Every structure is written in C-alpha cells, then in structure tokens.
C-alpha cells in the first residue's frame, strides 16, 4: 500500500516537475520567440491607404478621382504547384503564364501578380479560391472625362505618386496620410473579439478645385484639334483667361499623333507636357504690342504719331523687311500695329532703346516664371541689354530673339485688357481639406505696368488689327475683339539661325474690347498656311464665341 502510494506521489511529483520545466521553457526560455510566433499568426498590421484627393473643375465636376481597386497577390511559400496555378490564373488576370510561373516560384512571402484589376476579374479570382492567392485593395486614379486637360492634371504612378502636372506639383497635399490598423484576426481573417490593438485612421488628401471650366476646356480642345488637323500642324496650344482674376478657364495642349501611336488612336491627342508653360517659342509679331505700349507709356509717341516707314531697313549687318512690299510711307502707330509692320516696330524699338525695351518686357512678365509653380515651368529667355548684338534691339522689337511661353504672352495681353495692371495667372481656385473645409486660394499677385490710358490706347489699336488688319478672322459677331496676330520663325535645334519654312502661328487678344472679360491665346506649331491671322485667329474666334455664351458675357450696349 505504502509502496503504491509512494510511487503515485513520485509519479505526480515527476509529472508536476516536467510540467514546471515545460512551463519554464515556454514562459521564460522561449517566451519571446513563441510570443512573436503567435503574434505573427494572429496579429495583422494593415496599412490603410489614404484616399488621394480629387481634382475638380471650377464648378465642382470631377476631373480626376481615385477608386479602390483590387490587386491580386500571392504568397509563393505556400504554393506547391506554380505551373498549375499559373495555368489557372493566367487567362483570368491577363498576365503571361511564364511570367506568372516566375513570380510564383520566387522565394518570397509576397509578390504582385496583377495590380488594380477591375471588379469582374477580382470576383473571378476570389471564386477560384486558390491557396496562397489573395486580393489587396489599392486606390487607382481615374479621369472621368478621358484625356480632357490631361496635360495640366498630369499623371500618377502605379503607387499613386504624382509624376507630372498638378498631380506632381500638389502631390504632398493630394496624397493624404496613410493610416494603420493593428488587429488580431482568426484564421479566416475575421477580427477576434476584443483583440484590436491599435487603429490610426488614414487622412484623406486635399482636393483641388481648379479654375478650369470643363465645358470650355472641351470646346477649346475640340476647336484646336480640328485646326491642327486641317492646317496639318504638329501641335498647338490654346489658353483662355478671366481678365480681372487671372484665372485660367481653359488650357489645351495638343499634338499630332506620332508614328509610335497605337492603332486606333485619334490623329490629334493630348501633348505629353503642359507646353503652355513649359515650352518657349519666339513670339513674333504678337510681341509688337509690348513695343508699342512701352513707346506710348514713355510718351515717345501717341497712337496718331506718324513715322516714315520703308518696307526694308538695314540694321547692323541685316536687312529687315515688312511682309508685303510697300512704298516708303507715313504710317501712324495705329497703322503700324494694324499692318503688323516690322519696320515700324523696329523704329519704335530704336526710339525706346534697349534698356527701356528690356524693362517693359520684364514688367509684362517675360524672363520670369508666372508664379504658377507648375512643374517644369520655363521662365523664358531674355537677353540682358548688355549682351544685345547689333540687331537684337530690332529683332526683339518685332518679337524675334526672345523666347516666351504661351502663358507669359497671354498674361501680357491680359495686362492691357485689365487696364494696364498685370495679374498673375492662376490654376487652382480652392482646396477642400480632409474635414471638408473649402479654402479659396489667395488672389493673384498684381502690379501696374502701364497706365489705364495707355492700355486703352493699345486696346483701340488692337481692335483695328481685328477690324481691318491682319486679324480679321478673329472677329466675333456682336462683339468687339481686340488682338494681334503673330507668325514667328522657329529657331534651329542646337544651331544658330532659323529653320527653313518652320513657323509658329499665333493670335492673342481679348473680348469684349470695351469691357474685357476674357483673354485668350492660340498657338499652332508649324501649320500650313503659316500665318497666325489665317490659322490661329479662327480658333480664337470659335473658342471665345463659346466662352462668351458660357459665361454669359453680354456684348456692350451700343447706341442705335
């Protein structure tokens, strides 16, 4: 009896001792490893992607927004038959079978198989219930209006980072702050009651409300595309701006499809860059407006002052000429502008001198960024007066030998339309913060460049250009249009001189001239015919005709 009792006690003691040892091993010696193992099995840390801010037009219509899509991923470590799995998955997710085999055979716990697939594909993958294959939600960027204003909006990469355009410029604000959710989940992925450890919500990105109007943008792109096709141009740019605020209402950058364009692509599509602010060109005759305005502001001439204008003029070693031969004649400054006389502009430039001409060019906004801070924005190219050659004063007076962006030239014309006050252009009207608060952006910077009287005189001359000069095709029924044509030669790439037969045709102006509401510029790259008055002016008319109706800008009241 005693023996059995003793044996039992001994057995119990040994059992208890073993248990104690095991507990000691689990709780003390291997505690950290086992705790980590357990947490690894049930604790999941999820990154909660922040919803990227949307981009709206001025009326709150979406131009870009993000939606959650499903990404197909795999854990190759639990996949025993990569070949069979690849064969099953390849036709569903549309990825090459060999590529899938390679990915499924990697020594990794996570590989992407197909990112951001549509709902139908995601559902198919889910229904296959393949071990080691799972779905992961990821936001994807959508442009509901297609390529509309795409060169302004820009692009985002596969990981939703802004790559170009406004998407890049405002990336830090659009992106938002991702959150995290650390939770305990059962093997089926369901949260274990009371097991949640930590939750930091993501913060949605800031929305941008642009100054663009979606309808006008569409109409502008349509009119520009049509002219690019009919004039066989390489591309074109068109901008419409609200005079008083500098808000850009439409900004189109189009290019003819290259040889590498996919089959079925439209012959004219969006340019890869926002050329209106990133690409410079020699402005040509549209620049004469600045030469004339400077001469008027300096009191050197009045609109009726007559100058003796030959059709050819030798300056330094170069003979300049007007487009059409004419006898030497007395032309008023207004006539010089209306006829777009090169010689007349040179004579006005010579009266101004290089220092004053340079000063006015800079005051009108040339040689410096516009303040849009757009990625890749060019400041343009202006020679320092000390570096002028013998012909620089002459060439710059008529718009060659300097380089500006379309936006810079537009703001120069907008200065005249705005009574001589420069208003910096603006592309973002407001932001919508994560809490829904709408914050209007600050008003554009302003500065006086010429007096209201001079602005009015220049405006009257520009009206003459459209009514009886080179810009007649820019006329809009019922309205008085003020503007100037330009036909500028294109410099050679990487060499001195100009490309033979290559021109940039342009028209810049505003309407209604009596009380300007809209300023616009149209540029066509290497059109045929080459003249701004022939190819760019009609696009200007078509665009502003639509804009006047859209913004309900009435024609000025006239006496009966």
């Amino acid at each position, binding site marked *: 009896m005693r023996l059995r009792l003793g044996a039992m006690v001994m057995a119990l003691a040994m059992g208890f001792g073993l248990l104690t040892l095991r507990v000691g091993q689990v709780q003390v010696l291997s505690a950290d490893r086992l705790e980590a193992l357990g947490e690894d099995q049930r604790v999941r840390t999820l990154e909660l992607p922040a919803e990227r801010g949307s981009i709206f037009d001025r009326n709150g*219509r979406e131009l870009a*927004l993000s939606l959650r899509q499903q990404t197909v991923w795999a854990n190759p470590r639990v996949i025993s038959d990569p070949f069979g799995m690849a064969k099953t998955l390849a036709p569903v997710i549309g990825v090459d079978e060999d590529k899938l085999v390679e990915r499924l055979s990697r020594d990794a716990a996570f590989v992407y198989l197909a990112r951001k697939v549509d709902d139908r594909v995601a559902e198919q993958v889910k229904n296959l219930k393949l071990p080691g294959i799972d779905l992961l939600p990821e936001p994807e960027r959508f442009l509901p209006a297609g390529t*509309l204003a795409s060169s302004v909006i820009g692009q985002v990469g596969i990981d939703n980072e802004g790559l170009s355009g406004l998407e890049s410029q405002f990336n830090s604000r659009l992106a938002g702050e991702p959150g995290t959710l650390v939770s305990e989940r059962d093997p089926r992925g369901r*949260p274990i009651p009371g097991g949640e450890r930590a939750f930091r919500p993501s913060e*949605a990105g800031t929305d941008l409300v642009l100054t663009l109007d979606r*309808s006008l943008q569409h109409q502008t792109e349509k009119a520009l595309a049509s002219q690019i096709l009919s004039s066989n141009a390489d591309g074109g740019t068109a901008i419409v701006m609200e005079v008083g605020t500098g808000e850009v209402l439409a900004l189109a950058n189009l290019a003819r499809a290259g040889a590498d364009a996919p089959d079925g692509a439209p012959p004219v599509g969006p340019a890869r860059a926002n050329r209106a602010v990133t690409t410079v060109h020699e402005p040509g005759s549209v620049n004469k407006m600045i030469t004339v305005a400077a001469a008027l502001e300096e009191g050197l001439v009045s609109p009726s002052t007559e100058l003796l204008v030959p059709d050819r003029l030798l300056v330094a070693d170069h003979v300049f000429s007007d487009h059409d031969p004419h006898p030497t004649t007395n032309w008023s400054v207004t006539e010089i502008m209306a006829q777009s006389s090169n010689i007349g502009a040179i004579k006005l430039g010579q009266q101004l001198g290089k220092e004053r001409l340079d000063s006015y060019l800079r005051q009108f906004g040339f040689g410096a960024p516009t303040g849009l801070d757009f990625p890749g924005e060019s400041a343009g190219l202006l020679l320092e007066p000390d570096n002028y050659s013998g012909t620089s004063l002459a060439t710059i007076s008529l718009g060659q030998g300097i380089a500006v962006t379309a936006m810079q030239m537009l703001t120069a014309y907008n200065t005249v339309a705005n009574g001589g006050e420069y208003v910096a252009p603006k592309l973002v009207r407001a932001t919508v913060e994560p809490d*829904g608060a709408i914050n209007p952006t600050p008003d554009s910077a302003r500065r006086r460049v010429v007096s209201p009287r001079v602005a009015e005189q220049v405006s009257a001359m520009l009206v003459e250009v459209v009514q009886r000069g080179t810009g007649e095709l820019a006329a809009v029924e019922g309205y008085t249009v003020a503007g100037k044509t330009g036909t500028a030669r294109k410099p050679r790439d990487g060499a001195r001189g100009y490309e033979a037969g290559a021109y940039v045709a342009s028209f810049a102006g505003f309407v209604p001239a009596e009380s300007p509401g809209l300023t616009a510029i149209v540029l066509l790259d290497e059109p045929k015919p080459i003249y701004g008055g022939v190819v760019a002016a009609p696009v200007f008319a078509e665009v502003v005709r639509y804009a006047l109706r859209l913004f309900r800008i*009435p024609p000025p009241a006239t006496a009966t």
Partner: protein
Amino acid sequence: MAVVAFPLPVRTPAPRRQPTAPERNREAVKLVRPARTRALPRAGRATSTVRRRAAWGLVSLIAAVALAVSACQVLIAQSQFELARLQSDAATAEDRYDRLRLQVAELESPGRIMATAQERLGMVPPPGVTYLTPVPSESATPTVAPARPSDEAVADDWSRIKPILATRP
C-alpha cells in the same frame, strides 16, 4: 440501637490513566463525536445553517457572476462580429458611392454628351448664332448679375460628404 453509618460511596473521578502512545494517537483522530453533535444547542445549529446558506449563496453568486461574465463575453463577441459586418457594409457602400460618383462624372463628361448627341440623337451644331445687340437703355441693363455656370452646390455637397467617408479598410 446503634446506627451504623455507612459512608455513601463518593464518586470520585478515577485517576486518569495515561494513555499509551498509540492510544493517544487514536484519541487525536476522533475529531467529532456524533453524540456530541446531536447534543449541540439550538443556537449552534442555527449558526451552522446560516453559514451553510452563506456558503451556498457565495457559490451561487460566484456562479452568477461567472455566468454574467460569460454572457457579456458572448455579447461582446457578437457585437464585435456585428461591428465587423457593419464596417464591411460601410466599406462596400463607400465603394459603391465612389463608383457611382465616377459613373456620374463619366456620363456628364462633355465629350460623351457631344458624342451621344451627334451619333445617337442626330443633333448637329447650329450653322450660326444670332446675336441681339442691346441698346443703352434701361431695358438693356441686366437686372440680375450675370450668372456663372458655377454650381456651388456641388462643392458644398462634397465638402459635407468628404469628412464622413470612413478611413477604415
């Protein structure tokens, strides 16, 4: 007659015999004598009953608390699953909202409207626009400020909805 007095026997306690060691041990294990138990006074029996009842009450209380805790755990678990389901529903509803938002924006895009008007409805742009030129009289002065096609309500709606959208997965 002589009276012989016999001393009455006096019950004197017998000298206690010192128990032997085994006896002592035997005596020590006699913890309760049934006779004595029966002989407990009434007050003692009542105390015992109270104690017994208190013990039972305590056990019952512990059982009730344990049951309540279990019930609470079940409720918490149920609520957690319900919460997870509601969160999933909310996420699904948000996804649906976003998809519908995209769909509306696509349907409203000028390119699509123009294509539909021209290709499906056979509409054509007007050959020209007739402008009425106002005269500088009172009738030509707009009584209402020119309205912009701006739809502030759209932005207002969005600014109201945006903070509501959840940030959970």
